[in-house]
């Protein structure tokens, strides 16, 4: 364990530590540019230079890669160090005069302008990106090319690299911001400050997640693509991260199941005419919600993609809803959140807000009042659905703006609205896998693809399968109060089932006569509730009367007449036919 002094203070550091480690141990600030705790020392920038006296010799060394020697006396701010450091920074500044980290460092050292030029190269050649790619990611997709003043960071032959996995590690480590994710991944970043999609491979799923712990997304995690990295494991002080962990399937026995699988919103990029995905300032309601949220990347300020607040915003209702080409139904929530957006934009930016609606549907407690309030906040309401969003100007005032084309049906004219930002209110849809989930739980789907309730009015939380309940938008579009009410109702239903400990079933069920059953299993194939099983010992089908709902389909298909339906026996129905036909009309 070497012991040394830094700026006159003594410190003991572990074997293999550098002088920089020793200085940091003492909270002594040594400026660095190319140093990163996750990477091996590189000594490219030399700004961490210090003066070291050891065994009677004094020398200037780069502290980030020079080992801490026992008995050394280090000085980090001696006149000689400061002179040399100023010179080094001045050299660097001559190459990249506009880079913020370098400019800040120069200001700290009292350098105004460099005597060695004022080139504006954005890259300071610290090599962090190159080393991250090599050491952490382990793919070596980027590297230095050329020499001397021509040196630059690039991919082999300056072409798109095949080994790049698009992880973005180089971007996040770059101190100058010269590397951008768009450059390496060719991905379109919808809104510069905004990403609702997956960002970091290890993250908390959403803000109020319960339990509030991060998870690792295997599809984007560097470790799962290259086998390297695992740096989250290194830095975690609780050793909570285990990359070997695998998904587990658990079987839970339950007497009642509540389905609250929610909805998805329609993919707006399908509807080419609204320009979503093509124009940066066309965003969806959810993206705007994220943007205006206090924890957003913009701190809740409403900004266009260029970082400026919008002067005018158009909010387009019914994108995919009430549209025969997409979803016939009304998505119910869009009118109210669009009004809220209008209110927020008026309050935060004072921009002109256009609401383009088909019908304003403000049904609900306090909703109409909110609509009236928005009417008095100078929001421009236009009754008419937008037909197109374009960036082709037809006049001077449309230059550089997005133009929303629509028919104002109250004025009877076609209007062109030049705006800075367009917010789409996409339709709420049943989840793509709703049919699969419905099949698992033996429930139906209504025509629009949402889960089918037992009765639209009298059984809105129950389903055709006993013990399966619905809550929220998986049953149909609804707002938060309605979802909460439905969830509470479903919970009460389930509790009453659990509390009672037994279920009352209809007496109308099917039975299979063991002696006449031929074992063809046709009944099993048609039963929608999996109530019929085959008893291998008896070589006959057996009906579970607790599960059987009594539709009688198995009875109709039974070729041997072994399946019977209680209260609807074949002979009973035939007797009914007899009785009815005995009467002459």
């Amino acid at each position, binding site marked *: 364990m070497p012991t040394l002094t830094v700026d006159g203070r003594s410190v003991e550091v572990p074997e293999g530590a550098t002088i920089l480690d020793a200085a940091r141990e003492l909270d002594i600030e040594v400026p660095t540019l190319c140093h990163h705790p996750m990477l091996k020392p590189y000594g490219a920038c030399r700004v961490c230079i210090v003066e070291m006296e050891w065994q009677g010799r004094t020398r200037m060394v780069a502290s980030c890669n020079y080992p801490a020697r026992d008995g050394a006396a280090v000085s980090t701010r001696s006149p000689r160090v400061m002179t040399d450091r100023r010179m080094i920074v001045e050299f660097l500044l001559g190459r990249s005069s506009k880079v913020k980290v370098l400019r800040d460092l120069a200001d700290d050292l009292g350098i105004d302008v460099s005597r060695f030029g004022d080139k504006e190269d954005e890259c300071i050649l610290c090599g962090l990106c190159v080393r991250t790619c090599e050491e952490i990611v382990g793919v070596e997709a980027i590297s230095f090319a050329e020499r001397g003043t021509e040196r630059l960071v690039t991919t082999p032959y300056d072409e798109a690299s095949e080994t790049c996995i698009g992880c973005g590690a180089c971007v996040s480590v770059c101190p100058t911001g010269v590397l951008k994710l768009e450059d390496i991944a060719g991905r379109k970043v919808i809104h510069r400050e905004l990403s609702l999609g997956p960002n970091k491979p290890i993250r908390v799923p959403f803000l109020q997640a319960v339990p509030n712990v991060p998870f690792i997304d295997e599809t984007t995690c560097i470790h799962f693509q290259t086998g390297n990295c695992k740096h989250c494991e290194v830095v975690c002080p609780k050793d909570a991260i285990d990359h070997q962990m695998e998904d587990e399937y658990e079987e839970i026995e339950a007497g009642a199941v509540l389905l609250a699988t929610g909805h998805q919103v329609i993919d707006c990029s399908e509807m080419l005419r609204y320009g979503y995905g093509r124009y940066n300032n066309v965003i969806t309601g959810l993206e705007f919600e994220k943007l205006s949220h206090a924890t957003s990347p913009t701190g809740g300020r409403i900004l266009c993609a260029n970082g400026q607040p919008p002067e005018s915003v158009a909010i387009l209702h019914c994108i995919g809803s009430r549209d025969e080409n997409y979803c016939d139904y009304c998505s119910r929530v869009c009118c109210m959140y669009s009004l809220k957006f209008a209110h927020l934009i008026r309050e935060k930016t004072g921009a002109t807000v256009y609401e383009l609606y088909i019908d304003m549907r403000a049904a609900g407690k306090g909703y109409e009042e909110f609509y009236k309030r928005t009417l008095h906040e100078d929001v421009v309401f236009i009754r008419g659905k937008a037909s197109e969003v374009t960036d082709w100007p037809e006049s001077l005032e449309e230059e550089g703006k997005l133009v929303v084309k629509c028919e104002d049906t109250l004025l009877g004219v076609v209007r062109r609205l030049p705006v800075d930002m367009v917010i789409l209110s996409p339709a709420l849809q049943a989840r793509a896998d709703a049919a699969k989930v419905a099949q698992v739980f*033996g*429930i*139906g*789907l*209504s*025509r629009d693809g949402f889960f*089918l309730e037992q009765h639209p009015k009298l059984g809105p939380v129950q389903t*055709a399968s006993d013990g399966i309940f619905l809550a929220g938008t998986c049953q149909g579009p609804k707002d938060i109060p309605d979802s909460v009410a439905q969830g509470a109702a479903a919970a009460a239903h389930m509790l009453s089932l659990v509390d009672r400990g037994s279920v009352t079933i209809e007496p*109308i069920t099917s039975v299979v006569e063991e002696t006449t059953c031929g074992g063809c299993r046709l009944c099993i194939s*048609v039963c*929608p*509730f999996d109530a019929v099983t085959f008893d291998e010992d008896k070589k006959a089908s057996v009906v579970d009367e607790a599960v059987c*709902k*009594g*539709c*009688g*389909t198995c*009875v*109709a*298909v039974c070729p041997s007449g072994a399946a019977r*339906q209680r209260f*609807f026996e*074949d002979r009973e*129905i*035939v007797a*009914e*036919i*007899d009785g*009815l*036909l005995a009467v002459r*009309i």
Partner: protein
Amino acid sequence: MSAQFEPRIIAFLCRWCSYTGADLAGTSRLKYPPNVLPIRVMCSGRVDPTFVVSAFRKGADGVLICGCHPGDCHYNEGNYNMMRRFPLIRKLLAQFGIEPKRVRLEWVSASDGDRYAKVVTEFTEQIRQMGPLAWDQVLSAPPTREPVESGVTAS
């Protein structure tokens, strides 16, 4: 009064949609012919082809089967089973020499009172045009080889 032929039609109505729909037709005071004699079954999927045959054998002139609209079945897929079975019933009847059009499958929901009345009126008229089912001729006639329409509609 002229002695107009009054057909007798046996109708199998599913308990959830069509029977309630027929009820609605009644409570809405819609007029429809009294020739239809309804039998309540739990599901259109319960209708055994033998019921159809035995209805004809016992003197019915037509058989109407009503179930929930596709996708609306209380038992999820009972009506689909009926839908698949129906062309077979028609083929079977054709082999017996009974006009396949004497049996009809319709989707009537609980709110389709007017539709039920319309279906019943139409079907009664159609059977009236076809005349009574003459069993003597049916049994002596050679089996038909003509293709049989499936008679299943999508909605």
